[in-house]
């Protein structure tokens, strides 16, 4: 007996409640933008400059005492948070201390770090400093720009590729879906105030890749079915295609989620934000390839006569098969 996530033949109507699903996506999208504008992202030092110190002690972390110890140093905005992870030992207590960039200094002065370490030792004598990272305002400004450029470049590259391989309507649908995924993920980070650093940008780009992967598989089937069912209603063609690829979609999302959940639980706290972004991205990427990309394709319409030479686009790789 096989494990089957969906029945062999499904015949679900994915566009029956188009106003509701598109409306839901629209609401999430607007909500994400509002969250970004009004709550803002909790930028890490990569993007805003400053210093983080990771501490480890055998006794429990007393955030208040840490704060009181550092306050007299007059370093401006200091945030202290305890880190929890199922992988830690019983008596392993980890905290992250984040200090804002000091004036217009590029990198932090050693004296500043030594002062902070001495202050923390005064409240927790056994404390150890596991890592110290400092980024100057100059670099952090550049990193933000590079991050924005790289996400835009990825989206543009994909737009062009899909346009070349399919039709412009497909490209628009796919890009709408991945902009939707990226914006909503950013919005979620704003709402949950999870630290947003360079690794999260990497996660966003992976989401772009994954969301697209999924959308392309559906579109590939749509293209094939458009050739097969020349007179069928576009909505029907889309529904048939999505139903036919549903089993694969859920299998792949399933295995990917399995791997990601293993990482979230067991992969340690350092990359948890990164993995969380990807996990959310896989879920929303799967959703959007049906309810955003295909829905937009339905709204835009596509040319129906695929028998002409450019219908070759889908089979030009056929002769390289093994």
């Amino acid at each position, binding site marked *: 007996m*096989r*494990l089957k*996530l969906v029945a*062999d033949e499904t015949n679900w109507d994915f566009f029956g409640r188009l106003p509701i699903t598109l409306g839901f996506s629209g609401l999430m999208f607007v909500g994400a933008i509002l969250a970004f504008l009004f709550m803002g992202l909790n930028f890490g030092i990569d993007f805003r400059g400053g210093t983080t110190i990771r501490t480890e002690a055998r006794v429990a972390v007393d955030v208040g005492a840490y704060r009181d110890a550092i306050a007299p140093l007059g370093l401006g905005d200091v945030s202290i948070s305890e880190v929890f992870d199922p992988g830690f030992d019983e008596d392993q207590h980890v905290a992250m201390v984040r200090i804002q960039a000091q004036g217009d200094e*590029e*990198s*932090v002065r*050693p004296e500043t770090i030594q002062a902070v370490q001495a202050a923390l030792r005064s409240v927790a004598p056994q404390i150890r400093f*596991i*890592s110290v*990272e400092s980024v*100057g305002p*100059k*670099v952090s400004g550049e*990193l933000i720009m590079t*991050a924005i*450029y*790289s996400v835009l*470049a*990825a989206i543009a*590259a*994909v737009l062009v*590729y*899909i346009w070349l*391989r399919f039709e412009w309507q497909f490209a628009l649908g796919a890009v709408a879906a991945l902009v939707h995924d990226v914006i909503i993920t950013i919005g979620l980070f704003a709402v949950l105030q999870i630290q947003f650093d*360079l*690794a999260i*940008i*990497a996660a966003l780009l*992976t989401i*772009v*890749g*994954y969301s*697209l*992967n999924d959308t*392309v*598989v559906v579109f*590939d089937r749509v293209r094939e079915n458009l050739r097969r069912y020349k007179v069928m209603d576009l909505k029907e063609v889309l529904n048939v295609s999505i139903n036919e690829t549903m*089993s694969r979609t859920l299998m*792949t999302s399933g*295995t*990917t*989620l*399995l*791997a*990601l959940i*293993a990482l979230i*639980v*067991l*992969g*340690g706290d*350092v*990359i948890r934000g990164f993995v969380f972004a*990807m996990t959310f991205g896989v879920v929303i990427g799967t959703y959007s390839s049906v309810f955003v990309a295909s829905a937009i394709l339905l709204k835009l319409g596509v040319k129906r006569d695929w028998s002409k030479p450019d219908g070759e686009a*889908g*089979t030009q*790789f*056929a002769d*390289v098969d*093994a």
Partner: protein
Amino acid sequence: MLQYPLWRRIVVIGLVLLGLSAAIPNLFYPRVELHNDAAAAIEQFGSTPEREADLSAWPTWMPSSLVNLGLDLRGGAHLLAEVRVEDVYEHRLDALWPEVRDALRDERDAVGAIQRLDAPGGELRVRIENPAGMGQALAAVRELASPVVTLTGMGANDIEVAGQDDVITVQLSEAERVATDDRTIQQSLEIIRRRVDEVGTREPTIQRQGERRILIQVPGLGSADELKALIGTTAQLTFQPVVTRTTDPSTRPAPRQELLPSLDEEGVFYVLEQTPVVTGEELTNAQPSFDQNGRPAVSFQFNVTGARKFGAYTAANVGAPFAIVLDGEVISAPRINEPIPGGSGIITGNFTVEDSTNLAVLLRAGALPAEMTFLEERTIGPELGADSIEAGRIASLVAFAGVLIFMALAYGRFGLMANLALILNVGLVFGLLSAIGATLTLPGIAGIVLTIGMAVDANVLVFERIREEVRAGRGPARAIELGYEKALSAIIDANITTFITAVILFLMGSGPVKGFAVTLALGIITSVFTAIYITRLMIVFWFERRRPKTIEV
């Protein structure tokens, strides 16, 4: 019948074996590392019994390339420094001044007396007494220009000379600046490398980044501060004539003189001639030693020209003090008791043994051509890296097991074949990482785990397609063939788009993120390869032996 030509079978199996053999050393990481370190040590310092013993920890005929562990996994210090290339422009112009002066003196009849003016950074300004001679003066100074030899600056001169009223302005041309920047960075890289090597740590990364930045990563070093102390010091050593000694910090030095603080004595300043007699560049050697009172000191040896200049100067100035200046601070200002012709000397000061050792290292490695600003610094403790590796290992194993079980349940025999392919796939990723000498970072491990999840996608696409064909009533061989054929365009399109994003990540990302991009991209390549060629080969082997009448996918 399923077609799979013999040559293709051989190539596919050969590639897999090659990839896996490249991955094998990583299973024995500590032993292979011991072997590699020993091999490097024997290469450099010759053989000892201990090194030979370490060398034999791993057979020499086996592949021995390992995946480099990134700083976040191994622990160590990371610095991003920006070189202040403007400093060098100033030095260039200072060095040009005597030539300009001599050139204008030759034209004294037309130009009259000349005087160097204070000028903003990057400019040399000279006032001439007689503005009528400006034309001749400019011509004389322009004679000093020499062509720049770079690819971009063909035909350009190194200096630009302009005259207004009675002032001549000399500055470096754009082409010369570019060339100078390049040279400065190259020199800085070289000197940083020498300094880091003197400390003797393994596999430091020292590379140029962008126009004027240098990235330095030293695994296993205690902290970024240590690294900064080592490479942040310019170590510009000069021997300058002393004009006076003073305790008044507001003393205004005369033109071409400068006021510098003493290193040891609080509140003491020296007025010095700005042009040094000799500089650290003319040192051939420096060693930590002790002076006649048994205090730590640094002894040094000049090269021939340095020795001659130093000898001539000391002979002409017996009884006068001269200052030994390091990075703008006067270490000491001894009196010249007698001429020093041999070109060797000793620097004393308020040193500890550690100070004198460090100073000797810095002097031996040479001075940095310009100061550096540190834009980014990171210290990662080794235990954090070890924890990350451990967490990554457990997460990968669990992810692996989960996906294997899932696939077996969903696709039965075919699932098992995909599983075998998946295991080979991860082996191939490691093999490729080792072969190209890529660096594995923590996000890189996440990339591998993600690959484990996504790698089955291509197989899933094929299997689902075969299922559909079987359901449509095709025979087993035909269904398998059509399944592969029809799934191919989806596999290619889906993976190329993901690959595009991985490439962009690689181009734009830095450090750990780059590591993620690398594993993601390699994972895409190997997963497409395993799905299209390896699982298919397995299916063909199975099919040829069993010749099933029906298949269940």
